[in-house]
């Protein structure tokens, strides 16, 4: 009824592939092991998953078994060497998928389902025929159990609030992304999964915000209100609120923290360009990029001196989208007697998009597609960028722990 062909293989029936744990948060490690394989045998481990938009992402690595059951060094594929989480961070869109993709989870209440398989020989997963020996399915979550997600549309604010389980009050973060707009929730949901209430705030390119979508139509008062919203929240400790921003969000982080009436418990930044720009002058995203590359140094330095709270500044040295490195200037801070507040993390080989760890990176992607397609080169090389993401996240959480909990 089902068997018409019997083939002989040197691999005894069913090697076993395991992932421990099988369900993890995105910033947790999973240990992948293959057992019951013969020694001196070439195998390929391959990981595949679909984004929320349906695009197929994949990675693979070549291993040789030796007299020990598990061999730790990849000898080829999407990464090489000893990389326990390599299968996750080295994923790229499969051949034939759309151009210019960037992996960003829209729905944080469901996990990524990753199909990890063990293939015979050193192969590429797209080469036919491929013999799958074993497989395991892993889930990667952006939200821990018990975290609550609330859409916030009040007092003109557009954002999503994540509250950890428990009675509170919790330390909190105001979370802002870049000029790409929309409302990415995944960093906030991870912060909440680590015990911090987190409010990701939309300020451009969102249907619930006033005015045309490709300009910033909100004023200083919007960001002040967002910060105040956190301080006033019954589950949040008003004196333990920080701000995090990536890309243009850094400028906003900085700017919000220096607004009158905003007293920040601590602050953290994340890859950035420090330019003072009146909001109203931003006409289109294409122009933004050009303007930001013209540094207005005196204004920048004035900004830095106004810090009143600890600031962590994270930069990728291969950031090709903005001139980030030149922006952070320790001398000015020292002159102002504020260098003790400043922590700078600079990562060689890392690009602009330093995201939560073990996530695939995009060296270039479509930043906007309407009214015209704009591809941005973010920079970064996979292995150093992955190392940067892992280290930066760990240091970011430690910085938050030190400043918001103690």
């Amino acid at each position, binding site marked *: 009824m089902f068997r018409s*062909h019997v083939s002989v293989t040197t691999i005894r029936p069913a090697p076993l592939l395991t992932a421990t*744990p099988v*369900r993890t948060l995105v910033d947790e490690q999973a240990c992948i092991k293959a057992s019951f394989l013969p020694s001196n045998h070439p195998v390929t481990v391959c990981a595949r998953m679909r984004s929320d938009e349906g695009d197929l992402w994949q990675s693979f690595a070549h291993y040789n078994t030796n007299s020990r059951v598990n061999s730790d060094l990849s000898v080829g594929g999407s990464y090489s060497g000893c990389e326990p989480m390599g299968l996750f961070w080295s994923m790229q869109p499969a051949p034939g998928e759309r151009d210019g993709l960037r992996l960003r989870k829209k729905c944080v209440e469901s996990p990524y389902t990753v199909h990890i398989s063990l293939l015979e020989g050193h192969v590429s997963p797209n080469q036919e025929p491929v013999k799958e020996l074993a497989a395991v*399915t*892993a*889930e990667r979550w952006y939200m821990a159990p018990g975290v609550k997600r609330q859409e916030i549309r009040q007092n003109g604010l557009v954002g999503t609030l994540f509250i950890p389980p428990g*009675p509170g*009050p919790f330390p909190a973060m105001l979370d802002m992304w870049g000029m790409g707009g929309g409302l990415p929730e995944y960093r906030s949901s991870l912060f909440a999964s680590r015990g911090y209430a987190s409010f990701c705030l939309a300020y451009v390119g969102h249907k619930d915000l006033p005015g045309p979508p490709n300009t910033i139509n909100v004023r200083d008062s919007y960001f002040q209100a967002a910060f105040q919203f956190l301080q006033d929240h019954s589950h949040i400790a008003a004196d333990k609120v920080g701000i995090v921003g990536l890309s243009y969000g850094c400028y906003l982080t900085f700017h919000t923290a220096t607004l009158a009436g905003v007293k920040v418990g601590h602050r953290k930044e994340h890859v950035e360009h420090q330019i003072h720009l009146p909001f109203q002058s931003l006409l289109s995203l294409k122009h933004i990029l050009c303007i930001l590359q013209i540094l207005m140094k005196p204004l920048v330095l004035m900004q830095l001196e106004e810090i009143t709270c600890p600031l962590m500044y994270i930069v990728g040295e291969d950031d090709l989208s903005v001139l980030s490195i030149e922006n952070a200037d320790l001398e000015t801070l020292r002159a102002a007697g504020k260098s003790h507040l400043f922590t700078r993390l600079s990562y060689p080989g890392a690009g602009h998009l330093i995201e939560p760890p073990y996530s695939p990176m995009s060296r270039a992607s479509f930043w906007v597609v309407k009214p015209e397609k704009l591809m941005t080169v973010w920079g970064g090389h996979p292995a150093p960028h992955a190392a940067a993401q892992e280290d930066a996240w760990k240091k970011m959480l430690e910085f938050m722990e030190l400043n918001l909990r103690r």
Partner: protein
Amino acid sequence: MSLSVQQVRMDNKHPTVKLSVHPSRALMDEAFVILVQNVPPGSQVTLHALHRCEDGHRWEACAHYVADSSGNINAADDCSVGGSYFGVEPMGLLWSLKPVPGSKPGLRMRKKNVQTPMVVTISVFKGHHTEAFMDQVPLASWVVERWYMAPGVRRIPITEQQLTGTLFLPPGPGPFPGLLDLWGGGGQLMEYRSALLASHGIASLALDYLTSKITTETGKMVDNQYFETAYRVLQQHPQVLGSRIAMLGLSLGTVFTLKMAVYSPVVKLRCAVCISGSHIQPVSGGPQQMMDLFSRNFEKISFSEQDEVIWRGLLLPIPSDPSLKVDVGRLQCPLLLVVGEDDQNWCSHESATDMKQMMERAGNDQLLTLLSYPETGHLIEPPYTPHTPSSMFRGAGVGQKMRVLWGGKTPEHSAAQEDSWRKIVTFLRRNLYGGSDPHAIHLSHL
């Protein structure tokens, strides 16, 4: 909660207390680490677990800790000095769960729906408390999910050839080694052990052989062929390796596991696992004859001081008549026996001793591995679920529920569950996945 949130903010002098449990989503048999940070050094805190089971009953456990000089507590390293368990017990909050005061007596926790997780709320309270947790506000809480099914495991009801069962297939191309999973005299179709085994790479068929559809409809018990049919269905399944099948039985399930392993011309096992059971049985009979044997020996029942039924004497003394016990000297596959020395329901310990002697006399005792656990009762289950020393139980086909004594002391029984499960999974994997067979044939599926 009787306190308003505003009052919480005023009273809660420790907004910085952090509680984390990792991993927060795990399989039922995986350990977690509970960490409490930023409490005043040397202060007393209580860890608490609360679970609402499928039947709606609430279960809780608590443990008393003293924070170290850094203001931290790690339940995997630190000692509990009071509450539901004592000493260093990383998973104590789960296995020491008991029904909350005021609950119906004689409860036993068994998950029926394996496709959803067991959800437990872990909290930390200031001070050392053993009761009235619902009237207090914790310093912090966390939520964990405990799963019987790994992602990608497929659940397939089996109804062909008048069988009542559920097959759990691991994720992947297969084919997989298989296992026939038999529970005991309570009947029903219990899926959770099979779901967990499939999460470890073994295609596992949970089989209801006492309250199957055919029995419910005809009133007649199935015979031994029912087990052989189940074996065949498993063996012929395209995703199962027909030459690598095991059987696992608990309690009454061990009777048919041993019978099939030794006497069936159809069932060829790579290995067998028998938990809390016996080889004593009418060798040529089936389920009905086994029930008849129990009925004939009913006067051997005794009762505890709390009027709990003790059934362990029903099959004693160990017979010498060969028609009354499986001749394990003829066994040809590895056998893992797991027994609790405080088993009040079956004479599993005495039976295991007799089986060992029979195999030594026959010269096949190298096939035997015997795990015998002191202060451990009858219901040796996968780890980290509450130990049930006694509960309300209705045997299949019996009219009324009785309060039955299973035995065991909670800390020792829980340790036995953890140790035996690990050894069971290793034994199964070694025998089902391993084995040196250089000419092994891989059956491709076209």
